[in-house]
């Protein structure tokens, strides 16, 4: 499994369709305070199934939908797609025929939410299943949010066992 690209539209400060492609190796994301860097990370956590608004720095899940700015009014929907390269078989068997797997999540202002894999509607469970045991996911060891790098050291011993279990 490799990241190919991320497509955001109406997600947080990304009011217009934006595509971020991820080549192999190391990608750096830079920019001034408040420009939207951590929002990209939130978008990846969200499309991978994150259910807690607090983990996305919001109060309610509707906080992920573009709320407007001085120049542009709010929108009615947030949509994020994550395109994965199915190169080494770490994606579950049922997707073996596809060279690419596209995961999509949408949220409407009225609270309605949709998930899709390869443009076919699916449930959250299907998305969680796809990332199971890969070491990635909205709460996986490989995602470290801003200001929380020391969290694993501060956490209780019982909470640290999940870290080991994930790698098992």
């Amino acid at each position, binding site marked *: 499994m490799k990241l190919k690209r991320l497509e955001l539209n109406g997600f947080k400060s990304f009011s217009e369709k934006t595509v971020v492609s991820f080549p192999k*190796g190391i990608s750096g994301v*830079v920019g001034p305070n408040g*420009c939207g860097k951590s929002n990209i990370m939130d978008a990846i956590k969200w499309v991978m199934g994150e259910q807690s608004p607090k983990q996305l720095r919001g109060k309610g899940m509707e906080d992920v939908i573009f709320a407007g700015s001085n120049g542009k009014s709010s929108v009615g929907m947030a949509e994020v797609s994550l395109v994965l390269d199915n190169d080494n078989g770490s994606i579950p068997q049922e997707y073996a025929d596809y060279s690419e797997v596209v995961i999509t999540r949408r949220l409407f202002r009225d609270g309605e939410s949709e998930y899709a894999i390869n443009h076919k509607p699916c449930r959250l469970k299907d998305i969680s299943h796809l990332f199971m045991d890969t070491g990635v996911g909205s709460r996986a060891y490989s995602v470290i949010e801003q200001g929380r790098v020391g969290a694993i050291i501060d956490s209780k011993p019982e909470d640290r066992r999940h870290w080991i279990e994930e790698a098992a």
Partner: protein
Amino acid sequence: SKELFLSTFKVIQEKMNEVFPVLFGGGTAKLSLTDEDDPLESGVDIMVHPPGKRLTNMTLLSGGEKALTALALLFSTYLVKPSPFCLLDEIDAFLDEANVERFKSLVQSIVRDSQIILITHNRRIMEMADTLYGVTMEQPGISKLVSVRLDTIQ
């Protein structure tokens, strides 16, 4: 299962013995189970000794030492079960220049096939990137992506 947890625990401990001294320029790190008799419920304790120090408990670690210890655990786990990608948001905020360099050389030595996405304000970290994305808000409140080269960043 019990055997799988114990064997994973042992391997991560072994990797930690390799990775911690690389990041700290010496010293030791030890993982232990709070309840050896019941591995499926047991918690995991960490005790580290930066070089030359007799640290009594982990809460006394400095901000930079704590971040570096967490990164040692991250990369030890990565060496046991590499995740397809890592997302790291300003993990260098409290690291001094010497530790940033040690972090860089560790990342470059272990990133084989994986993708690492690093959000940072630190020019030395930016130098590591194969691809650099800039996020701007030319129109206030609206994020846009632009491609940047290191020499154009003011």
